């Protein structure tokens, strides 16, 4: 077997061994609960600002782009609202936001755990008899899996608001047409689809980044490299999973 394949299977094996330890029963539930609340604040609430800024501008840009690319009397202007809604709902607010978060919280998780590893803080937990994998990683997974769908919903609403603002300010669509468009031919299942994707992407970002951080070794250079790997690998896995989920859930 060639080395890259051998390495790949070694990583996959170690990843599942780590997950086995992560999902072991917690030592003291109250401590895990407190840690989960801390992670929700750290990974979720602290990401709301960047998500809001990106969503409002992307919503506005999609409105303007759709308008300039569909300048024809054959296309009713309410289709701009419909396009903004479906782009946000189907792809942007779940997939693109997940890719952005893999950069923000993925690198954060990998560097935090990597630094804890190289400064022996993880060893200190193990010596105390604490399941370090479970104590450090499970709260991050729980926080991301439950909070990413919330961020996605927030992104959809802010993106729609941004689209409305961008359209009305530039005059490419009337407020009435835009609001009619975002309600037109609405399929509620799309919301379920996007929430499922968001939860799965949350799991991917946290587990892949945690794996890279937890098994970091050496010094600052290696921690930095592992953080970069965490972002790249979680982004690629998100894109592949997105393709598979779209095929599974929408066809």
């Amino acid at each position, binding site marked *: 077997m060639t080395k890259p394949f051998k390495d790949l299977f070694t990583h996959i094996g170690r990843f599942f061994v780590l997950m086995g*330890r992560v999902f072991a029963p917690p030592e003291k539930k109250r401590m895990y609960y407190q840690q989960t609340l801390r992670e929700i604040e750290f990974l979720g609430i602290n990401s709301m600002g960047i998500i809001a800024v990106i969503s409002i501008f992307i919503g506005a840009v999609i409105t303007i782009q759709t308008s300039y690319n569909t300048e024809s009397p054959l296309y009713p202007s309410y289709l701009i609202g419909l396009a903004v809604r479906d782009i946000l709902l189907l792809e942007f607010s779940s997939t693109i936001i997940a890719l952005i978060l893999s950069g923000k919280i993925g690198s954060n998780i990998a560097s935090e755990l990597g630094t804890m590893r190289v400064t022996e803080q993880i*060893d200190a937990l193990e*010596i105390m*008899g*604490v399941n370090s994998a479970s104590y450090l990683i499970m709260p991050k997974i729980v926080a991301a899996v439950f909070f990413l769908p919330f961020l996605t919903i927030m992104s959809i609403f802010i993106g729609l608001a941004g689209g409305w603002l961008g359209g009305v300010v530039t005059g490419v669509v009337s407020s009435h047409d835009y609001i009619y468009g975002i309600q037109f031919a609405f399929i509620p299942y799309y919301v379920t689809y996007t929430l499922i994707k968001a939860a799965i992407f949350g799991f991917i970002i946290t587990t892949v980044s945690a794996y890279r951080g937890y098994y970091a070794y050496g010094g600052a250079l290696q921690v930095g490299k592992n953080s970069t790997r965490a972002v790249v690998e979680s982004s690629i896995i998100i894109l592949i999973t997105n393709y598979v989920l779209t095929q599974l859930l929408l066809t």
Partner: protein
Amino acid sequence: MIELQHVYKSFQNADILNDISVHFEEKKTNMIIGQSGSGKTVLLKCIVGLLDVDRGQVIYDDVVFNRLSFRKKKDIRKNIGMVFQGGALFDSETVEQNVRFPLDMFTKMTDGEKLHRVNECLERVNIINANKLYPAEISGGMQKRVAIARAIALNPKYLFFDEPISGLDPITAIRIDRLIGEITKDIKTTTIINTHDMNSVMEIGDKVIFLYKGEKWWEGSSQEILHSDNSELNDFVFATNLAKKVRDLRKSGESS
């Protein structure tokens, strides 16, 4: 009681530990000494279970520790306190939260009882009015002392120190050494210290194990070490000019 029987450890075909058998003295200060790269840290990590041994047995009170499952190891680990070379304090938590952590995790104490125990441990290591500071806000010596306070919070049966005075000035180093000696006597722990500092050995060492190229080369008391005719041990013990002069003066005194 901690005992090692024929312990071997290698990394990628490089033998790091070769047939190490040691009986550590109970409720005493046991020192593992040796040059950098002699296998001291690997040995310590094998004893506490951070590394698995390739062959041999690590025995805690007649229980073969290295053959236990992770869950069963946890029961023994609750009796272990360890101070790492860099302190390994949780840098996102305050001094108080660091010392309180094992109490939160493993006891059913009330908040008041925990705070009382935290302050007791911090006072024991002479840290006062630093409860709300973060590790980055205190000196290296204080970090080591906080790490000791955290290690003794649950009154462990066994205490391990990996290079406890590395990077500290001589006065702080002596203070830490004496503190370790006092704690060993006060709470009657079996203490194992990994060091290359001969001052520590002479200050607090009861039993000394000398590692040389991954093998146990010599063992004895801290007094016997000065009279050993083991050349590798002598090269290590009398490596500094000061130590050589002390040895020569001692020899000339004995002959005259």
